């Protein structure tokens, strides 16, 4: 009895394993479409950002196919297709799926998985196949110092995350001198910290506190108590999602007040306010993109850039349709979507899908979409996209910096936690 169960199981495993591989092999490659391949992180530690990226890509593909009419190649309109697998946020799966995407599915471009580590893991495989590799999830600047030829970044580099916030405070409050840095101890957040530290020194701020906390931390009390003692004028820091919520919450618990608090990654997400409610009032975060940014065809004309893609509201509608869920896209979705548009423009410009030609066209490409500006330097590093500073005001995300993208004034200083507990909200001055 047991044995027959086992036998059946084994046969199922084998069938499951090998047959489909040959079916997919037999499928003929059609020149009638452009295929985007993506080892998406749909489960595991990056599931949250992975889902967003998936929705963003689906939304922009939908727009290109149905509104834009397809990619113009040699006088024909060619539709985009999307092939993705779940890499479980694990490196072993990333390379095996990229290998499959390139050789079995014969994709024309590979989109990177989320995080710098996984992006780097895939790079040697795409490089060896001469395959274009577009990076919307790896912010580490070092990726672009490795001599890869086919990698192009859409997400902005990590060192730039907090520069805008520092510029803003430098301008609106020249008296504020003491800044505290408290970041997660991870390659990404450390990179942000280095960028922020350098920039702060350049602007003449005093760094009164500079510490990190380990990944997966569940209690920040000791670090925050030490931070409190240095009485900073404002605090910048953060790392990922859960630690940002913890950071804000425990600052409230310990009654640590300062003029401003800016946290990377976590603070700009709707879940942040939902989890913290009033405590998040006045908290800021740098973002690559936020619902409400004022990038439009008109704006693009003003600065002399080509415009492509859906308007912001169209994007949001398509995003929801793509995922079949009522969630608002965040910047992970926008940058992944903008990457589709960058590819479309570059392929049209090159009039080809050959990776070398598209890569070269991407190097010269400069455009604007709902995501904002897009331009890369010779190494593929994103330099054309500027980040915005977002602040929670009355439960809404207001873009407060840079001035040309503002949707509202900045509330500075932010209310103290005691005031917030009594229901005070952040209002611009």
């Amino acid at each position, binding site marked *: 009895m047991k044995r027959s169960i086992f036998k059946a199981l084994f046969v199922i495993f084998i069938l499951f394993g090998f047959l489909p591989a040959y079916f997919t092999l037999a499928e003929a490659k059609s020149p009638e479409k452009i295929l985007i391949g993506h080892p998406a992180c749909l*489960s595991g*530690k990056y*599931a*949250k950002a992975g*889902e967003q990226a998936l929705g963003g890509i689906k939304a922009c593909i939908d727009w290109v196919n149905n509104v834009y009419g397809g990619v113009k190649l040699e006088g024909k309109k060619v539709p985009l297709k999307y092939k993705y697998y779940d890499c479980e946020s694990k490196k072993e799966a990333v390379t095996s799926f990229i290998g499959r995407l390139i050789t079995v599915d014969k994709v024309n471009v590979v989109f990177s998985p989320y995080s710098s580590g996984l992006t780097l893991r895939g790079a040697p495989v795409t490089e060896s196949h001469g395959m274009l590799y577009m990076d919307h999830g790896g912010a580490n600047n070092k990726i672009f110092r490795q001599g890869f030829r086919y990698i192009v970044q859409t997400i902005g580099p990590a060192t730039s995350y907090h520069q805008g916030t520092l510029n803003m405070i430098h301008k609106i409050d020249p008296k504020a001198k003491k800044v505290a840095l408290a970041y997660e*101890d991870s390659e990404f957040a450390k990179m942000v910290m280095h960028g922020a530290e350098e920039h702060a020194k350049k602007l003449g701020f005093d760094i009164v506190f500079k*510490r*990190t*906390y*380990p990944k*997966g*931390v*569940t*209690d920040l*009390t*000791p*670090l925050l*108590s*030490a931070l409190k*003692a240095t009485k900073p004028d404002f605090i910048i820091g953060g790392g990922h*999602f*859960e*630690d940002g*919520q*913890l950071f*804000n*919450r*425990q600052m409230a*618990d*310990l*009654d640590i007040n300062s003029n401003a608090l800016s946290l990377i990654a*976590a603070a700009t*997400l709707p*879940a*942040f306010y*939902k*989890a*913290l*409610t*009033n*405590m998040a009032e006045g908290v800021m975060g740098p973002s690559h993109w936020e619902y409400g940014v004022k990038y439009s065809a008109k704006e693009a004309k003003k600065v002399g850039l080509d415009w492509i893609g859906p308007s912001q509201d169209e994007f949001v509608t398509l995003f929801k349709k793509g995922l079949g869920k009522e969630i608002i896209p965040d910047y992970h979705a926008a940058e992944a979507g903008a990457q589709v548009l960058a590819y479309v423009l570059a392929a049209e410009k090159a009039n080809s899908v050959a990776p070398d030609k598209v890569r070269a066209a991407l190097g010269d490409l400069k455009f604007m979409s709902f995501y904002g500006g897009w331009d890369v330097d010779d190494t593929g590093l994103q330099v054309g996209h500027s980040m915005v500073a977002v602040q929670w005001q009355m439960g809404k995300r207001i873009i407060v910096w840079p001035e040309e993208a503002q949707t509202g004034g900045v509330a500075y200083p932010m209310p103290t936690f005691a005031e917030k*507990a009594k229901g005070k909200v952040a209002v611009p001055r």
Partner: protein
Amino acid sequence: MLLEQLIGNLIQGLVLGAVYGMATMGLSLIFGVLKVVNVGHGAFIMVGAFITLWLFNALGINPILAVPVAFIVGMGLGLLFYYTIMQRLIKAPELATLLVTFAIGILLEETVKLIFGSEFRGYNWAVGKINLGITVLPMTKIYACIGSVVIALLLYLWFNKTRAGSAMRSVVEDSEGARVCGVNVGGTYALSFALGLGLTVASGVLLTMFIPVGINPYMGGGYTLKAFVIAVLGGLASPYGAFFGGLIFGLIENGSYTLFALIPGVEPFALTRFLSFAMLLVILLIRPTGLLRAK
């Protein structure tokens, strides 16, 4: 100044440590009776956190009332998993039980993800704060601490005053001997497993009272590792040992930060983590029965 910070941190550590201790009692209880290390421990804490979140946000139920609900859910899960899975593995080598409990953990995580999504959530139960001058303690933390102590005391009484409790103790001592003396060993195993998971899920509620944000399906991993260290401090097989282990752990984790921060060129927070695992090794080697020797 430094001393003030140190004392402040120690107070925080003590309050947190009580909750950590309670969150480890279930692990120790299950190990003590069944000799099974529950590698999916953190996933059960996560279930407790989601119960609290859901009761509070959807139904407006006070987190304190979520404790018994979570306890009952945990008991239910415990009985379910015991009779479907664990029962068959009592005599199996460690390897099998380690892996099965891990798989149960994944199953819970993925199920919760399917229902609630992978969003990071939180709730805000505003009941004020106490300012001690050197540090500030929100009332929620104090309630969580009191709750932990009460649960630990109840468990103590149950162990020492009830028939089922003493049966359980006899199985911990010597399961064959207990069987000879007419103790229903199978039933005791089931009850301990259920009770252990009940405690663990309930501790998830208390932990969210301490840290009511960042609740998501994968939040448990960090707590599993912490629970291992704490359980070893307390002697692994003893639930009360675990409770005191938690207190010691909280004190060391919070107190050592201030001291490590004095060393230039290092990351003190990561070193506090290093210290806790170094401590684990040392204790396992020199005193495997835990800092407070079990009876």
